[in-house]
């Protein structure tokens, strides 16, 4: 099986910022002499274009966290990259941060690639003032005089509607929403080309969440950055992402423009997922999916969704479906949609 990533449909002239090809990232443990491999990411391919917000949706054990850890180069045992590549346009030729020389990686981190993390409440050092965090993270990349740097930080803080006085505050002195905005400013101060956003608003109240999402959108549009936006919350995806990929049990099952996914989901998992979401103003009863997500230490053969799939057929338990173009810019990995020749 071999999944190929062709150039994004219809935009041959624009080179994508990130191309992930057939990535396999496993957790390898040896406990009591028994070697186990948890295949958290198993053959994932996609590309993120310049200036888009690319959404990644998946459940708790779908491997989305592992995927972004791999892309961000935060690979520590027991996590291992077993195969595939992740090529950034600003770090060509290495196939991933983990294979590039440390000096190169240090150069691009935060300058080109930054990160808004899950649980942003705890990403700021509790015993250092916010100013120090900005200095630690961004000053080596921006340089110049201290005053210039400080002016730049203050100007950037105003974009997320924070007063310059927060610079002298400790993280615990700020409210949750302020901390999240400070973290957002920290992540975007260098105007990075690529931002990984990992559940950046999950812990926030809805009103603050909407505000922060608006700021992410605003800064992204202003700087022209690409954003890989990961969250399990389909409401957030509908609100902010341009394109959306659905991940299930370590593999991508569907990818399309966000509106297309919501209007015309093709993969049975996506269909069920979208149909099960309650909406205000719609009273029809909704049905959920049966069964439970698989154990990635011992995943089902063939299509990993087949034990829960209403459309499963014989081939699904035997062979792995590949992502195929099923419409303009709409890829899906399903035999029922693509036909049995999908393998």
């Amino acid at each position: 099986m071999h999944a190929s990533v062709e150039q994004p449909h219809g935009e041959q002239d624009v080179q994508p910022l990130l191309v992930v090809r057939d990535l396999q990232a496993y957790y390898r443990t040896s406990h009591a002499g028994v070697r186990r491999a948890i295949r958290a990411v198993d053959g994932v391919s996609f590309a993120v274009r310049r200036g888009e917000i690319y959404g990644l949706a998946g459940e708790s054990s779908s491997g989305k966290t592992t995927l972004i850890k791999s892309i961000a180069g935060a690979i520590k045992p027991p996590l291992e990259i077993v195969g595939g590549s992740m090529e950034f346009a600003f770090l060509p030729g290495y196939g991933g941060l983990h294979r590039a020389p440390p000096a190169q990686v240090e150069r691009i981190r935060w300058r080109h690639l930054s990160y808004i993390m899950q649980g942003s409440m705890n990403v700021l050092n509790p015993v250092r003032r916010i100013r120090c965090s900005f200095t630690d993270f961004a000053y080596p990349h921006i340089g110049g005089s201290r005053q210039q740097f400080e002016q730049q930080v203050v100007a950037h803080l105003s974009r997320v509607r924070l007063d310059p006085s927060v610079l002298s505050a400790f993280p615990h002195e700020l409210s949750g929403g302020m901390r999240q905005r400070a973290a957002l400013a920290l992540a975007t101060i260098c105007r990075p080309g690529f931002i990984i956003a990992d559940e950046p608003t999950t812990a926030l109240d809805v009103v603050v969440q909407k505000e922060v999402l608006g700021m992410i959108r605003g800064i992204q549009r202003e700087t022209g950055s690409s954003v890989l936006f990961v969250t399990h919350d389909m409401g957030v995806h509908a609100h902010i992402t341009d394109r959306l990929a659905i991940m299930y049990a370590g593999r991508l099952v569907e990818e399309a423009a966000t509106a297309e996914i919501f209007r015309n989901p093709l993969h049975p998992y996506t269909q069920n997922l979208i149909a099960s979401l309650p909406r205000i103003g719609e009273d029809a009863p909704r049905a959920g999916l049966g069964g439970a997500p698989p154990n990635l230490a011992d995943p089902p053969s063939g299509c990993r969704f087949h034990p829960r799939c209403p459309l499963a057929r014989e081939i699904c338990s035997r062979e792995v479906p590949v992502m195929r173009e099923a419409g303009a810019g709409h890829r899906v990995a399903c035999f029922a949609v693509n036909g049995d020749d999908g393998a």
Partner: protein
Amino acid sequence: MNDLLLDVRDVSKTFVRGGLFSREEIVAVNKVSLQLAAGRPEILAIIGESGSGKTTLARMILNMVTPTSGRLLLDGTDLAAISGSAGRIAFMHKVQPIFQNPFESFNPLKRVERYLLMTRRRFAAAAGGSTAATAVDAALHKVGLSLKEVGGRYPHELSGGQLQRVAIARALLAEPKLIVADEPVSMIDASLRISIVNLFRTLRDELGISIIYITHDLATAYYISDRILIMQKGSVVESGDARAVLTAPRHPCTRQLREAALLPQIAGGGANASGTTQVI
């Protein structure tokens, strides 16, 4: 007084922080009243952001927190008057909780059926007839599981969705009239969430159990609840029929919540209103 299942009258809860030198009072719940009728099961959603006092209110209804002022009556019994183990058992026979984190709801060192059997023994042994095991199995069947799947398992061997179902089955074994569920689906995966939510509806319709559903999620609240209570900073700012409140909110706070709620649907006709690089 038996026409009310639950009668919450003007309850307040103030927490005191600090000690001798620095005292700070935090009003978590401020003069909240609510009623549930007996014999007419309904799902009441209590909605609020973090710090709105909704969890403290739930804990007061579960008698885990004593109110600073006001009274709570359950089936005519004042919660403040409950004492002794017999009183406690009688109370828990009527009210049971469902918690937010299914992985924390059971002791990780113990098998989950222990809690099911214990509940059956303590609350419904007098019911007689079936053995404990069949009763537990029957309760598990009501939530779409069976003793065969769950028996002998430790919490970490079950998924979050399964554990939450077990938690509901356990509550059912006490044959309660009221279930207080605090954010019961916020940690459940999206594909499994709606079936748990549907389960609450079944409990109301088929078993006649009233449910207080605490959440910050407007969509699920709209989907299952009959009545709704919006809380902000300890006070109830709006309440009424779920559909009416959520489709035509009156209080600015409710309106703000309603507008901020991100629904899983594409607004308007075009792509993402943003119309960035690609419109397909």
